[in-house]
């Protein structure tokens, strides 16, 4: 089913024309007094593996709250490192079959910051990276280095990050709508620029 078809279904009321009397009779025959499903922590920022993250941070001498830094601002963070961090988190999340929102909840991190991690853009705090490391069961120091939040000084790590970022770039053929969007973008942007160049 296409996205457009799905959106139609989504907005279509589900009111059944069938006779529901048997179902309703059955549904109300036994108590459904305990039906809660889902997870909600006491507070979003107290969720997840906070204790694990704290232990990890203490063991490895990580940044305290006052030392939280913006990844983009740290010169040690190469683009490849940040991109490899983004890819690593995205692929790990998909391997777990989790949505971004679910991972944020599970790992006890801010949704906006998790998006920033996966897109490689915007501010990311050290604590967020530490919590992700604790949740994904990986070395938080390494993840902090990829985020540019801890000194790397490690050529091997930079090379590994570079190759990982390169190897995980998609080689899938374009979807039809992507192809159409690309062509339209080229028509609108480059054709005009070419015409302007010729005129000049």
């Amino acid at each position, binding site marked *: 089913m296409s996205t457009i078809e799905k959106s139609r279904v*989504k907005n279509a*009321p*589900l009111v059944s024309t069938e006779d529901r009397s048997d179902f*309703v009779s059955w549904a*109300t025959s036994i108590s459904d007094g305990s039906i809660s499903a889902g997870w909600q922590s006491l507070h979003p920022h107290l969720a997840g593996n906070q204790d694990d993250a704290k232990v990890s941070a203490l063991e490895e001498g990580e940044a305290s709250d006052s030392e939280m830094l913006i990844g983009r601002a740290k010169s040690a963070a190469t683009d490849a490192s940040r991109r490899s961090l983004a890819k690593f988190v995205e692929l790990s999340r998909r391997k777990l079959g989790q949505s971004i929102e679910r991972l944020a909840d599970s790992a006890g991190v801010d949704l906006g910051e998790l998006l920033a991690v996966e897109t490689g853009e915007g501010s990311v705090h050290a604590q967020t990276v530490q919590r992700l490391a604790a949740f994904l069961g990986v070395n938080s120091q390494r993840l902090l280095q990829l985020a540019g939040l801890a000194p790397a000084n490690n050529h091997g790590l930079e090379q590994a990050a570079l190759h990982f970022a390169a190897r995980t770039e998609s080689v899938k053929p374009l979807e039809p709508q992507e192809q159409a969007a690309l062509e339209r973008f080229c028509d609108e942007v480059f054709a005009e620029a070419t015409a302007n160049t010729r005129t000049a």
Partner: protein
Amino acid sequence: MSEQATKLKEQPGGGEVAAVIHDLLTLEALFTAEEQWCLKRITVLRELAAASIHDARAGWPQSIHWSWARKAATCSPSRLEAFGDVRLFGVEVAGQWQALLYGVSEGYSTHLGAKNRPLVYVDFIEAAPWNWDIPPLNKVGRYRGAGIQLMELAVRWSMALGYDGRIGLHALAQAKTFYANRCGMQDLGPDAAYHNLSYFELTETSAKTFLRSRP
């Protein structure tokens, strides 16, 4: 928002009560519901304290700390729009919300049978606090049938999306019997990736049986 008349049964006595199933709720409904439910959550806690049941592991309702208002506040309204992935359902009696369901249509897939087929994931479902069974307080819920009718809507939504009725959810421990026995869902055991809550899935076949009221 669309509505359909239905019935619940009131305890004690088992008398039928007119109710309304609501589809395509807005986030505002979640705030309203929590306004109605939060005082009752406090009442339950007060009753547990009065009964000297201080240990939360001794049968406290496991969703007593939930807040649908918080859920609403953290959900982008765009997720409820045409291309969004969230759909909200509720059952109401005389202006009071009796149960709510927060379903998600994208990003989740099957663990049973052929893997990675899409399903509707029930991110949250809860009955109003006055509908809870609370064994340590010898309390039974007031209205019966709200939760299961919401699950019916989730199954119908799954069918409408072409997911053949497949549903997935993570149940709190106290609700496992409901999903296994009443809904006919399969318990795949604790999910280490999601707070060790038990993951349940409803197959296509079980979905059809569920709608025929014979899990």
